[in-house]
């Protein structure tokens, strides 16, 4: 299209942005990262180093895996301007379904997993249908779902716990990726580091961490170079370096700790791959872009030719599949399905997403933010448990952290507006 320049000269109100201004406009992202580091440092000190012991780091990941898996779906639901209160119950129901299929009905593990994931999708789709096409508020639809599926798990399990699961199902949650490198390498590496308590270092875990760190830095550098090329305002060099050093060091540190215990948990791989996929979908695909538009301004999105109903429907169906996946992991981890599984867990998931910077009104939030938010909650849970703080105080502290994060958001927004 060839549009002639208007006769008035453009006078861009360009302002050189200082570092201070950069910080204030990106306070949220850095704040979250620093909060996580500060909380970890605090618990590391007050628990006399227990927090970051190899076995505890492994535990931390396993304990939070199902929260993170569900947070991925919840982020999309919340960005689209909705909420899903049913995920805890759906998770419990799917765990119950898996237990009944495997333990009571003697079905094979692969078939069970397949049926459970499909069932999760159907449950999500059923709820999404009412929200998307009947315009019933998601709060109400999923509140109903929460009650219905809680009741269904009770009915399915007849009020009993069902278990245990066969080994091949348990490895979903408790298995570790075997080291592909020769055992002797790991042994000599352990000797080299002169770690007395550890006889063997899992080289695969460590190598994965180093490669992941390298990839993160490489992607960052590439993006930065492109931003420069297109004249996009970028973060100051010092921030870029500091952020990348912290992230890379954290990745290597965590995998190093894992390598001292039993290596990479299967769940970590699942979680990592899912996180990357969902981060990619939300940031660089048309469907992700449309979800943000839908949550940001539904009417404008609709008038821009976006099929808002279908998108809402898909967001819920996707949430259902992820809740099912989380349900399988949870059941495998406990090695039993109980009627109370997943009780009130939806609140932890929703809290993680909001701590991660998502907005209740939709259109705002990131996958990475939600994952970091989930870890922040996880570290709080874990650290306080190690310290022996009672569940009463734990709940209060978690509640206040959530409130503080959201107040911080609102304060920032008001200041900018």
């Amino acid at each position, binding site marked *: *299209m060839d549009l002639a320049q208007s006769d008035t000269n453009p006078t861009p109100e360009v302002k050189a942005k200082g570092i201070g201004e950069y910080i204030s406009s990106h306070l949220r992202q850095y704040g979250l990262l620093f909060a996580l580091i500060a909380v970890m440092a605090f618990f590391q000190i007050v628990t006399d180093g227990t927090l970051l012991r190899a076995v505890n780091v492994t535990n931390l990941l396993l304990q939070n895996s199902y929260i993170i898996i569900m947070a991925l779906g919840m982020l999309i639901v919340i960005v689209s301007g909705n909420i899903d209160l049913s995920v805890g119950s759906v998770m419990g129901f799917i765990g119950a379904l898996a237990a009944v299929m495997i333990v009571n009905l003697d079905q094979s593990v692969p078939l069970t997993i397949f049926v459970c994931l499909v069932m999760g999708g159907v449950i999500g789709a059923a709820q999404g249908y009412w929200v998307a096409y009947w315009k019933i508020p998601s709060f109400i639809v999923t509140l109903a779902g929460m009650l219905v599926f809680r009741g269904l798990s009770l009915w399915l399990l007849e009020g009993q716990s069902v278990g245990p699961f066969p080994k091949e199902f348990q490895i979903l949650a408790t298995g570790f990726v075997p080291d592909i490198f020769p055992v002797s390498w790991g042994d000599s590496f352990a000797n080299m580091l002169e770690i007395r308590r550890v006889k063997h270092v899992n080289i695969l875990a460590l190598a994965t961490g180093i490669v992941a760190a390298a990839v993160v830095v490489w992607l960052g550098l590439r993006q930065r170079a492109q931003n420069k090329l297109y004249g996009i305002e970028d973060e100051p060099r010092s921030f870029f370096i500091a952020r990348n050093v912290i992230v890379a060091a954290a990745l290597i540190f965590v995998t190093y700790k894992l390598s001292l215990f039993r290596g990479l948990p299967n769940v970590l791989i699942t979680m990592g791959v899912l996180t990357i996929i969902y981060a990619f979908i939300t940031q660089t695909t048309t469907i992700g872009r449309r979800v943000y538009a839908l949550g*940001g301004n539904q*009417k404008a999105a609709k*008038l821009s030719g*976006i099929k808002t109903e279908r998108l809402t429907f898909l967001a819920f169906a996707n949430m259902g599949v992820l809740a099912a996946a989380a349900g399988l992991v949870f059941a495998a981890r406990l090695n039993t399905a109980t009627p109370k599984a997943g009780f009130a867990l939806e609140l932890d998931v929703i809290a993680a997403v909001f701590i991660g910077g998502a907005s209740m009104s939709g259109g705002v939030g990131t996958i990475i933010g939600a994952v970091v938010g989930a870890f922040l909650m996880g570290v709080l849970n874990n650290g306080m448990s190690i310290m022996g703080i009672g569940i009463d105080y734990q709940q209060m502290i978690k509640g206040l952290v959530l409130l503080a994060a959201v107040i911080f958001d609102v304060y920032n927004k008001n200041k900018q507006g």
Partner: protein
Amino acid sequence: MALLSMQNISKTFPGVKALDRVNLDVKKGEIHAVVGENGAGKSTLMKVLSGVYPHGQYEGEILFEGKPARFSSISDSERHGVIIIHQELALVPQLSIAENIFLGNECATSGVIDWRQTNRRTEELLAKVGLMEAPSTLVDNIGVGKQQLVEIAKALSKDVKLLILDEPTAALQENDSRKLLDLMLELKEQGVTSIIISHKLNEVRYVADSVTVIRDGMTVSTLDATAGISEDDIVRDMVGRDMTHRFPEHVRSPGKVLLEVKDWNVWHPEHVDRQVITDASFSVRAGEVVGIAGLMGSGRTELAMSIFGRSYGRNISGSVKLNDNEIDVSSVDRAINAGISYVTEDRKTLGLVLDETIRFNTTLANLEGVSSGSILKRNEETRIAEKYKDALAIRTPSVFQKTVNLSGGNQQKVVLAKWLFTSPEVLILDEPTRGIDVGAKYEIYNIINDLAAEGKGVIMISSEMPELLGMCDRIYVMNEGALVGELDASDASQERIMSLIVNE
């Protein structure tokens, strides 16, 4: 004696100077009309007066009853007896007339409402404004005209000294308007001073004792109307400039018929038996700018939105042809793919995702154009956004600026950019210059002329008749859901358009 004196009032919004040293003097016991074009600053001035923009957010001095007044909020100004009735009525539809009248001002002792007194006083007030309805009737169940009267009754319940009516008749039918104006005259007899904001000059002539004309945020003149006043005098002051200077020069040579809509009928989405559009047929040629004139509520937006992917109404029937081929406009994406774009009337609630960047908004309606296999090419996206930023002269530090931070004119350009990127053949522009300043308007007019020069068909819906007369080759006149006339630019005038509307 002056009841109110506003002196040198200035008010600036980001990117726009809405008021520039405006003066307004209102005598006790008169009806004072404030007139001006859309966007001249009338409503902003009234918001300053009523405390919507509290003291400190504007410059200048307000004297009320001879004393300096510094209202900090609407409730503060109401305590002093200044009561404004806005264009958009502030009634709660689910509450009764009585409840609405005494909302926030209940007849109550320690929080317990005295319903007998409430109803008795409501009946008195309703009698005063001439509204025959029971106090317990829900506001939702009465028409807009009667709702307007409830608003006035509400004002009267509060010991009003100065009543401000912001475009009170904009949404009213002819006879309802007349009743309202008569009520104003009656209230004047009872000693109520009022300010009426309007751009319907016949109404101004009917009720006003003095008229203040505002143009581009400045006071142009204050005329005494008691001895009679001619509409021409007011119009001259309102418009000020020659028409030729307000609209860029253009020479057009429309080609063959591009878009043709035939026998378009639309029913209301909720009231099933109400027909909103009746047998509308119109056409646009390539390289032609066609206007649709009509009052607010005449069905112009509904016509456009029902064509654009059935975004409005139900039981829609009729045919849409583009280049002589019938096209499918049954959903928004199909309409876009067929080559139709609709630039919405309200850019903030319908046009933009305000919390997102210029780049995000520019590509939103055509993400396929910046992606391959549904993966976005973000550098390409940036390039496109930069291209439109330059082509439309969007004033911004970068395309990564959130659109919420832009001025109205620049926001409108982003919305235009979004639709230009869908490569439409026909653009429907609904009130494309509403609420933006004069300079930005001129730029939008330039863009429209460029689009026509490229051979696109442009349909322009506008409430500003001078704008239609200055920009269009042909003008359709719409009234009560039907196209009641078609005028060629050469023999169109405000009077002819108006008479087509009135004679229907």
